[in-house]
């Protein structure tokens, strides 16, 4: 019987059926960080349990560390406390920890793929909602809570229900100046923030097939913002080329066997789906969010909706301080943030650097602009290419790696009513650390354009025709 990748991978990992249509599912890769794991380890200790497969859990720190300096102890005592708890736990239970001291830390969804820990056909769980990022490789990857972290630590399994599967085909060809981030924002705008509730999303079609791995990661990363707990792309030659030679990826004869296996888990051509959606990629514009839910977005050439009958729109417009019908372009910004698990990878920064190079463009004097690499490896590569100097010359601050101002539990945060042009993934009220702060989500290139202009700007205009 033909099956989708989701079904094939799920079925492989079923330990046994449970009551009520649930399954006990084996978790192939468990990733942890300092914010959501400490109570799970404490719970484990309280129950006299241990970590059943410490070799299948990998740790890093990303949310709490400052990005100005990684010198310990961290100035914020709570940040320091969470990192110390993580250090104690990985030591006590024998878990491999990718630390700043060893030059290995980074956002968990950046370093997993970088190290080749993330592979097609795995089940991957992490106490972080952006875990679908790893689905870009053809893995079934999803966010879990702290009680479930405890379950994975104690048993390497979880209680799971099978999701429905929706195939989303993105057809045609993206226009110049339109990036994977714009595709993600457009999809969420069309389908709504709750459109994916109860579904795994299979992203497919010519636009996705042409995407690089980093673009696929951006798209899958945002699956949760459309309500889907899980998003994935079928593995192909692009996937294999990216994986080959990475530290945790097998070489030699095992590599050949792995590729044959990975080919076999692709969705069958006649696989059944619970839903099928087709989006014409050639109509997608550079997108920017105007509201406090990720589906509240418009093309950068657009205007704020005027539908004040809709309580959600009215509340968001009130919080953001818009006049009905106002154009979004020209909105002054205070802060520009390029980074996060959505857009903190090498190609995101390279795309911005390519536009800055040789143009003598400077960040507007009133704008605080941050470049925060997604991992120390990304940071090292940017330095090796000399791009740190290019960014600093243009007026950006070049920071240490971490989640930083995406959720702002380290010292990087908005103040008061500041407006931030951000390449991150959430525009929720208070998300960037100030209860009244305002976030406009967009692609890294549009953030750079906003930083330079000092206001939301169509990057196609500022930088000329984009490729």
């Amino acid at each position: 019987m033909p099956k989708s990748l989701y079904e094939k991978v799920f079925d492989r990992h079923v330990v046994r059926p449970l009551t009520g249509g649930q399954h006990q599912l084996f978790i192939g890769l468990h990733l942890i960080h300092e914010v959501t794991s400490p109570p799970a380890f404490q719970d484990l200790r309280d129950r006299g349990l241990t970590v059943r497969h410490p070799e299948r859990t990998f740790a890093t720190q990303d949310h709490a560390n400052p990005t100005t300096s990684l010198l310990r102890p961290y100035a914020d005592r709570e940040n320091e406390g969470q990192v110390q708890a993580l250090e104690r736990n990985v030591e006590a239970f024998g878990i491999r920890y990718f630390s700043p001291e060893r030059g290995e830390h980074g956002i968990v969804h950046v370093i997993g793929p970088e190290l080749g820990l993330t592979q097609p056909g795995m089940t991957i769980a992490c106490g972080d909602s952006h875990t679908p990022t790893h689905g870009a490789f053809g893995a079934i990857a999803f966010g879990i809570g702290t009680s479930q972290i405890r379950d994975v630590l104690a048993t390497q399994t979880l209680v799971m229900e099978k999701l429905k599967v929706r195939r989303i085909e993105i057809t045609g060809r993206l226009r110049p100046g339109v990036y994977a981030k714009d595709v993600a924002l457009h999809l969420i705008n069309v389908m709504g923030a709750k459109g994916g509730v109860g579904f795994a999303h299979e992203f497919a079609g010519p636009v996705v097939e042409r995407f690089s791995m980093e673009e696929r990661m951006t798209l899958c990363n945002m699956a949760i913002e459309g309500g889907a707990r899980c998003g994935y792309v079928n593995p192909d030659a692009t996937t294999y080329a990216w994986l080959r030679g990475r530290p945790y990826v097998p070489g030699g004869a095992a590599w050949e066997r792995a590729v044959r296996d990975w080919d076999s888990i692709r969705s069958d051509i006649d696989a059944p789906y619970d839903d099928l959606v087709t989006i014409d990629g050639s109509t997608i514009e550079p997108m920017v969010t105007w509201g406090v839910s990720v589906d509240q977005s418009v093309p950068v050439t657009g205007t704020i909706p005027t539908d004040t009958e809709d309580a959600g729109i009215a509340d968001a417009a009130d919080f953001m301080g818009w006049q009905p019908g106002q154009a979004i372009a020209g909105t002054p910004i205070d802060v520009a943030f390029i980074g996060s698990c959505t857009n903190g990878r090498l190609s995101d920064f390279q795309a911005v650097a390519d536009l800055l190079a040789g143009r003598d463009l400077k960040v507007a004097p009133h704008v605080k602009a941050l470049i925060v690499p997604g991992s120390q490896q990304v940071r090292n590569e940017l330095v090796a290419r000399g791009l740190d100097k290019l960014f600093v010359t243009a007026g950006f601050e070049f920071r240490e790696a971490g989640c930083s101002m995406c959720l702002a539990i380290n010292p990087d945060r908005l103040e008061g009513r500041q407006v931030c042009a951000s390449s991150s993934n959430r525009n929720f009220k208070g998300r960037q650390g100030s209860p009244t702060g305002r976030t406009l989500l967009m692609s890294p290139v549009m953030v750079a354009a906003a930083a330079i202009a000092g206001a939301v700007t169509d990057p196609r205009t500022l930088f000329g025709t984009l490729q």
Partner: protein
Amino acid sequence: MAHRSRISGTALVLRGNDIDTDRIIPARFLKGVSFAGLEAHVFADERSALRARSRMHPFDDAQRRGARILVVNKNFGCGSSREHAPQALQRWGIAAVVGESFGDIFAGNSVAIGMPCLRVSERDAALLQEAVEADGARTFAVDLEEKTIRSGNLVVPVDLSDGARAQLLEGTWDATAVLLAAGPQIEKTAARLPYLNGWA
């Protein structure tokens, strides 16, 4: 663990769609290493924003302080996977959430701590919200066996997945013991997985 089939008490209403977990518990309250004390910070920013406008958030209404059932609208608990959100609600006193739809991770986290998220139709959500707002002392009873919420003559059908319902009725929402009971079947599954065995 005791089974959980009936949850009754007074209720409170939180209107609006897409209420995300950052709103339920802002990220700055995620900096501790335990969930203790989170109840003090549930909806912290929304509550202070309303106080600043001389308005009252439902969680600040003294009349509702004993409420056990929270009635919401669509996609409640979307966003971040932070279990701090259902933990904060439960520690505040909420024992069941009734709404039109829920974020998948939030709903799973809620069941894992024994707090069901029950789906009702848009019409029934409106009906319940009106009834709750009209009388702060009115009590409601969620019955997981018959999948209803009742109050006097009002009877509304509620839905939740068979799996979550079974976990609550059987008292196995804390799943660790059930999962451990699989014993060596866990390692048998691992032994079948190509990537854990060199694709041999």
